[in-house]
């Protein structure tokens, strides 16, 4: 059915998972997604290096933007979640935050129009780093035994309850956290791209219809696509914020003395 539509109108309809896997540019190592990630890395390095080439006490415009990002992450995420201990993690969180924001925003940049984070490989890398980080910090601070005890055993509970609680806590702290971190970011970007595809491609499909009424209705589809593009900006920023906030929170609990 879908093959027939594609052939008829030249528009791939309906949008499918296949739309997320464009043909490789040159082999499995040079793909659109790989290039976009390198592009994001290059842009961020260039921006921060230029903005902080000659930092002054009274910042210029670029320096001010760079410092705004840093200030947001430092004060609103790191310090909010971890107290003053979080400030030394603020540099990494800033890099993480700006990388996620930029790659997320690629989803609505004309010409790119898809976020690298809609391939789960990249969220997995980022979540894995956060995972290893909070495990390592927890073990280093408390030692392996007491870190596990602190993570798994809820104090002040009748002892038979532990048969139930320890597996739950284990699942919660060591399985669900990294999994949800990666999947949340991936799913948001995946779904966002799918929504944009539905409204944009849907508009073209309606425009190609024989029925005048349906052709006119395509305006609403395109309008919705534009609206959703703005919505995607919000989601892009929000997901980056959530990812970094949760990472900060996990590291904070690793550092904390209580359960």
């Amino acid at each position, binding site marked *: 059915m879908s093959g027939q539509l594609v052939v008829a109108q030249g528009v791939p309809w309906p949008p*499918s*998972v*296949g739309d*997320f*896997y464009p043909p490789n540019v040159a082999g*499995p*190592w040079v*793909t659109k*997604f*790989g290039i976009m*990630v*390198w592009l*994001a*890395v290059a842009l*961020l*390095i260039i921006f*921060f*290096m230029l903005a*902080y080439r000659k*930092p002054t*006490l009274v910042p210029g415009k670029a320096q001010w933007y*760079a*410092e705004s990002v*840093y*200030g947001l992450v*430092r004060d609103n995420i790191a310090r909010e979640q971890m107290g003053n201990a979080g*400030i030394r993690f*603020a*540099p*990494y969180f*800033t*890099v993480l935050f700006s*990388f996620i924001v930029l790659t997320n925003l690629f989803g609505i940049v004309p010409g790119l129009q898809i976020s*690298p984070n809609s*391939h*789960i*490989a*990249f969220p*997995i*890398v*980022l979540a894995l*780093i956060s995972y290893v980080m909070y495990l390592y910090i927890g073990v280093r601070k408390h030692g392996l035994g007491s870190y596990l005890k602190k993570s798994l055993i809820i104090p002040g509970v009748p002892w038979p309850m532990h048969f139930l609680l320890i597996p739950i806590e284990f699942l919660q702290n060591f399985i669900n956290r990294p999994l949800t971190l990666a*999947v949340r970011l*991936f799913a948001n970007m*995946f779904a966002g791209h799918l929504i944009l595809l539905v409204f944009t491609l849907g508009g073209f499909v309606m425009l190609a219809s024989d029925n005048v009424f349906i052709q006119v209705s395509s305006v609403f589809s395109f309008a919705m696509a534009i609206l959703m593009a703005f919505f995607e900006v919000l989601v892009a920023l929000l997901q980056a914020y959530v990812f970094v906030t949760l990472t900060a929170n996990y590291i904070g609990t690793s550092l904390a003395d209580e359960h």
Partner: protein
Amino acid sequence: MFIAATDVEHHPLVPIWQELVIGTIAFALLCFVLLKFVMPRMEAMYQARVDAIEGGLKRAEAAQAEANQLLEQYRAQLAEVRTEAAKIRDDARSDAEGIRQDILAKAREESDRIIAAGKEQLAAERATIVRELRTEVGTLAVDLASKIVGESLADEARRKGTVDRFLSGLESAGAR
């Protein structure tokens, strides 16, 4: 059917392992560069700014305190100067009064002295005149008497006592 149709399709929840490698390397590079070259300076700048603002406030407070202290000092000095000036004025006034008194006393003394000297001189002159008059009147009287008597009594010394006696009689008659 599904597998056959999606031979090129990929399950979205299965990562492409090349992308895992690319993502790791690219993100590691990003972290390395930014964490080494940019972020430390950013935190340093952040701290420098906090210091600058807090330091500025502290400096302003110190300057304010110093200004207040100086003001107090100047006020104290001014008050001191005022009392001193008043004291000097009083001193000057009393000094002037003293000097006036001194000058007045000296002038009075001087005038007394001048008056006394005058009186003395007058008395001396009067005595001289009286003495001269006495000899002259005596001579005249003797001359007159010798003319009347017709003989010169001038060189007769014993007559001198007569003249003196006469004149003393005149004086006492005049004084009476």
